[in-house]
């Protein structure tokens, strides 16, 4: 209880609250502009949070992301262009409601469901993370090695696109993480004599490149037409919402639960949560034929799921240092820079910081209600903001952000190379999330593998010598080998039946 009070005290200072307000406006703005994603908002925010204490820095990220994910619904509803990928699942549905003249109903439902979903996810985060941490305190390098493997395998399996391309993406990320001085022998790898490369590929410029620069490139390459903002006026979005929420209260909880669970899985974030929740909603609906024609039920499920997924992703990130989505991958980089290395020991040594994260999540989701309302009101002005002015400004922020981490232009080179790489990869159907996870987890994977090998004296069976390591190992290996085996068996049985 004392810890919670300390945490509340840490968050409720004028400085932190002001930072959160600024972050909220930033998040709403970025989220509601199509083409600018919540992950990009986080990447652009990092150079600024770099100079803050841990609590305001994390509060800023949490707030920005929660706001951006909701704000992505606004252009989805009004223009049928999702503001962030997390709104893509139901942009058609929401726009169909707008076409029927019910934009208020769509936006109001999205907003309230986002708030409730976010609060549900936070509740799960705040209750399960400390329990898991207590359990995780017994983990040794063997368990962490398997956890990292498990996380990376999940990222490949769940990622959008083919598993093969996901695997390539992951291996590229892992390779990038080996650049620099090697941890066990101290030998420089792939540095080609460059002193700057010895420190390895800095994480923040890499993120800015892969999420922001690549987006600018995509804007330049696309011939996106200027969207036509509908002239329909938006009235009171909360009117008549009570009956809707009462009717679909089960959907609200189900969406929240699905969102949190998918958020916890490494590599799958709010966007996949929304797709799955929407599909589940349609599958179990009593009136599935109404889906697609402007039916509010799917919005309830998926609107609550994507905001719940955000907090779910923080569970593995805080407890094991394994990110649940690309946003928490960035967060883990920030935590390391703040000396708050994620893992069960933070829960023991600095519990007030962990609880401050929870408090920030609750506060951000509650603040979403009035601020989201404001954003809906201002939507038409924001959507008129010309992208041809915005994109060069974003590029300039990227440059300064990449420079600011180490104060060298080398960061800008990293940003450029990885930005181009990410652009080419995405254009050709290679998902980006596994690369990010590879860069974040590569060092942890190798570090734990090497120390385990030294402990076990080179005996690979050592990796299965402890009960938890054994079960984690079996789960990981079955993720790798079961799908092809099952596929082969099915083919054989088909051949027999013919």
């Amino acid at each position, binding site marked *: 209880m004392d810890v919670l009070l300390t945490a509340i005290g840490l968050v409720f200072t004028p400085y932190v609250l002001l930072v959160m307000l600024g972050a909220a406006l930033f998040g709403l703005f970025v989220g509601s502009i199509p083409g600018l994603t919540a992950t990009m908002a986080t990447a652009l925010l990092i*150079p600024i949070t770099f100079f803050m204490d841990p609590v305001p820095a994390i509060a800023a990220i949490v707030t920005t992301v929660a706001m951006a994910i909701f704000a992505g619904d606004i252009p989805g509803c009004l223009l049928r262009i999702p503001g962030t990928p997390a709104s893509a699942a139901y942009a058609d549905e929401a726009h169909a409601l707008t076409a029927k003249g019910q934009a208020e109903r769509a936006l109001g439902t999205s907003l309230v469901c986002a708030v409730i979903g976010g609060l549900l996810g936070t509740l799960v985060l705040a209750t399960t993370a400390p329990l898991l941490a207590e359990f995780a305190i017994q983990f040794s390098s063997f368990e962490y090695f398997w956890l990292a493997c498990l996380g990376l395998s999940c990222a490949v399996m769940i990622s959008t696109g083919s598993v093969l391309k996901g695997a390539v993406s992951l291996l590229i990320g892992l390779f990038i993480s080996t650049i620099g001085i090697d941890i066990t022998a101290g030998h420089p790898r792939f540095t080609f004599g460059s002193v700057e490369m010895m420190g390895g590929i800095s994480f923040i410029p890499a993120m800015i490149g892969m999420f922001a620069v690549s987006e*600018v490139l995509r804007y*330049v390459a696309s011939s996106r037409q200027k969207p036509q903002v509908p002239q329909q006026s938006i009235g009171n979005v909360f009117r008549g919402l009570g009956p809707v929420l009462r009717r679909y209260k089960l959907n609200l909880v189900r969406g929240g639960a699905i969102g949190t669970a998918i958020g916890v899985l490494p590599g799958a974030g709010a966007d996949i949560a929304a797709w799955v929740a929407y599909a589940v909603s349609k599958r179990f609906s009593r009136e599935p034929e109404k889906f697609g024609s402007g039916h509010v039920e799917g919005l309830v499920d998926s609107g609550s799921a994507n905001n719940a997924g955000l907090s779910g992703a923080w569970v593995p990130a805080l407890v094991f240092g394994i990110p649940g989505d690309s946003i928490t991958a960035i967060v883990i980089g920030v935590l390391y820079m703040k000396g708050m290395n994620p893992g069960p020991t933070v829960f023991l040594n600095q519990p007030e910081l962990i609880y401050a994260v929870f408090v920030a999540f609750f506060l951000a989701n509650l603040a979403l209600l009035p601020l989201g309302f404001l954003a809906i009101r201002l939507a038409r002005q924001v959507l008129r903001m010309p992208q041809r002015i915005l994109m060069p400004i974003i590029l300039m922020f990227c*440059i*300064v952000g990449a420079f600011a981490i180490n104060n060298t232009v080398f960061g800008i080179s990293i940003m*450029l190379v990885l930005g181009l790489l990410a652009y080419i990869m995405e254009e050709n159907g290679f998902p980006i999330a596994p690369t990010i996870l590879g860069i974040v987890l590569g060092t942890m994977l190798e570090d734990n593998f090497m120390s385990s090998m030294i402990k076990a004296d080179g005996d690979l069976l050592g990796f299965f010598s402890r009960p938890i390591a054994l079960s984690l190992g079996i789960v990981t290996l079955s993720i790798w080998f079961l799908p092809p085996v099952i596929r082969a068996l099915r083919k054989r049985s088909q051949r027999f039946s013919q």
Partner: protein
Amino acid sequence: MRLNDAIFGIVLLIFAFAVIVYSQSFPATFGQSYGPDLFPVLIASGLAVCGLLLTLKGWAARRKTPWFESGDWAKDWHKLVTFALVPLALIFYILFSEFLGFLPTASLILFVLLRRFSVGPLAALGIACATSLVIHTIFARFLLVPLPWGLLQPIAW
């Protein structure tokens, strides 16, 4: 810009081979069979397998997917130049920001890009200068990032 999977496969195979060969130059750790070369070699082997599979997949689908599909924008000369301007702007900053200083470099990059995106000349000039000043104030003044002054050193504030 879309390429046939086989092209990615072949590039990956070459890359993986180069990594494996280069990793052989890493010193071995005394008394152990695993050293700094173990992980790069494992990763490269994985990439080689994926590269091989991609090549086979791309070859099998070569009738349906062309080797190279540039997309409409690359045929459009104007668009291609615009696309190239983004990396060029970054390279320009890397090479000249130290000498010119942040404010001139940033204003110039912003002005050129804005003009290219067909923003009017006066508006582009105003936005370029104002944005550079705002970014400079935020990062150099408040966040204490040592953005270079370059030519403007004598009038640094």
